[in-house]
């Protein structure tokens, strides 16, 4: 049990920033540049961690709570989700609800921390972020319900258990739809192009980035690290769905999982390179579309 938790956390904490590095590298290669080295995110985090905190006099403890919760939540959520064929160390009946709403908690604290600064831009960003994620949530829940129906269990361990490889035969259509919807949710929740640009520097078009403008030093480091962890935890869901094989050897399983995550990071880099950002009014439309897709997947499974 303890060993499992340590293995899970070690995989998560060590590997997550590398995914960001892979995404940046892919984008750089597409643009014909050499790009930052793969390990650059680790160096950025170390650099930010050595700096000091700067707090505005208008802020309260809530301002610091945002980054802290944003870092702790993905770590907790990672304990609930199996990493590839490695089962989750903590599981109970119905933990999928906790999994979804843990991210709701972190979003709440990020938004509240943004509002705490009293800047109008940050309020705007918080409003946008909350709107989009409340539209993305039904998709996630529908997808999990489909998985619950296929597996007959209500814990993430059972949902993403060894039956998945067999389920791809008869239920391929709904699983395919779910994978597509989950990738869209992954892009929205981690504020990637085409929904949001993590590198944007124009306040009016920012969504997620505008909320963290006032954080600096270790707090910004916590936010960046938390974002990397979140990408890996949500990516774990997609990777497990697409690569449902089980070899029986923990080492090989972990390698398959990490390889899948790297492929996912490359895919995200390709999506970011070939697509432009959507107009803000188009995003809710697209999110409702994916909700309908996952609802349709549920209809296909139910009949």
């Amino acid at each position, binding site marked *: 049990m303890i060993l499992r938790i340590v293995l899970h956390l070690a995989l998560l904490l060590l590997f997550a920033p590398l995914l960001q590095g892979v995404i940046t590298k892919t984008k750089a290669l597409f643009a014909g540049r050499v790009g930052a080295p793969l390990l650059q995110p680790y160096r950025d985090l170390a650099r930010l961690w050595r700096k000091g905190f700067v707090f505005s006099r208008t802020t309260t403890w809530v301002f610091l709570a945002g980054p802290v919760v944003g870092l702790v939540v993905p770590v907790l959520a990672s304990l609930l989700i199996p990493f590839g064929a490695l089962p989750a160390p903590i599981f109970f009946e119905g933990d999928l609800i906790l999994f979804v709403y843990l991210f709701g908690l972190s979003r709440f604290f990020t938004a509240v921390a943004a509002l705490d600064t009293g800047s109008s831009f940050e309020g705007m960003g918080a409003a946008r972020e909350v709107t989009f994620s409340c539209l993305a949530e039904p998709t996630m829940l529908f997808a999990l319900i489909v998985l619950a129906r296929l597996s007959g269990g209500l814990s993430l361990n059972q949902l993403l258990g060894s039956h998945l490889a067999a389920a791809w035969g008869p239920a391929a*259509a709904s699983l395919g739809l779910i994978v597509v919807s989950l990738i869209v949710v992954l892009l929205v929740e981690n504020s990637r192009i085409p929904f949001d640009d993590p590198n944007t520097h124009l306040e009016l078009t920012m969504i997620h980035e505008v909320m963290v403008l006032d954080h600096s030093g270790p707090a910004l480091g916590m936010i960046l690290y938390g974002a990397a962890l979140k990408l890996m935890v949500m990516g774990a869901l997609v990777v497990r769905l697409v690569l449902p094989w089980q070899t029986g050897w923990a080492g090989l399983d972990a390698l398959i999982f990490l390889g899948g995550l790297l492929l996912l990071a490359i895919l995200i880099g390709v999506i970011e390179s070939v697509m432009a950002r959507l107009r803000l009014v188009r995003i*809710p*439309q697209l999110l*409702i*579309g994916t909700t*309908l897709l996952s609802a*349709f997947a549920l209809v296909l499974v139910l*009949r």
Partner: protein
Amino acid sequence: MFGLSNFCLLLVILLNFFCLGSSRLGACIRAVALQGALLALLPVTAHGLSGHALLLAGGAFVLKGVFIPWLLLKAIREVRIRKEVEPLIGYVPTMILGAVITAAAFIFADSLPLVPEHHGGLFIPTALATLFAGFLLLMTRRKAITQVLGYLVLENGIFIFGVLLSEAMPLMVEAGVLLDLLVGVFVMGIVMNQINREFSTLNTEHLSALKE
């Protein structure tokens, strides 16, 4: 063979959603063309390679997948419109309605008294859902060209039903239906040009206004 036709039918349903949710006419016409081309595969995947099925598939492909979309694309280039500006019901509500009727079609199809071999397949629910999606397009859009698209989607739904019966249906009937469709689109094209010349817009709302 069965897997392939189910795959086609799923794509047909997804294209329905796309047509209901997209505001760009060019993309909509291409989606309907792709839908027609997918439907042309169905007789072959459902009944195997026979002369009858091949004729049906070839006719459907040429008309639905190539010729009619080409006519429509030419039409929107001539009257220079790109977008359906304001539908009677917004895009998101129509998409939700589309999803509801698709779910309803799946539930309804299970309670129909069908021959046993059609039970549990995707053919009947997809046919119903496509039919209703066509109705929705016809009802909610103002531009004459999107209404033509709705009519085409409606006919696609009927075609899916027809594929199930194609053993019993003589080729003549199919050919007649396709000819009707072509004539319908032609007439609509002429009407569209007239509306455009009279009101300098394709909005069909003007047609219901009375004049002295």
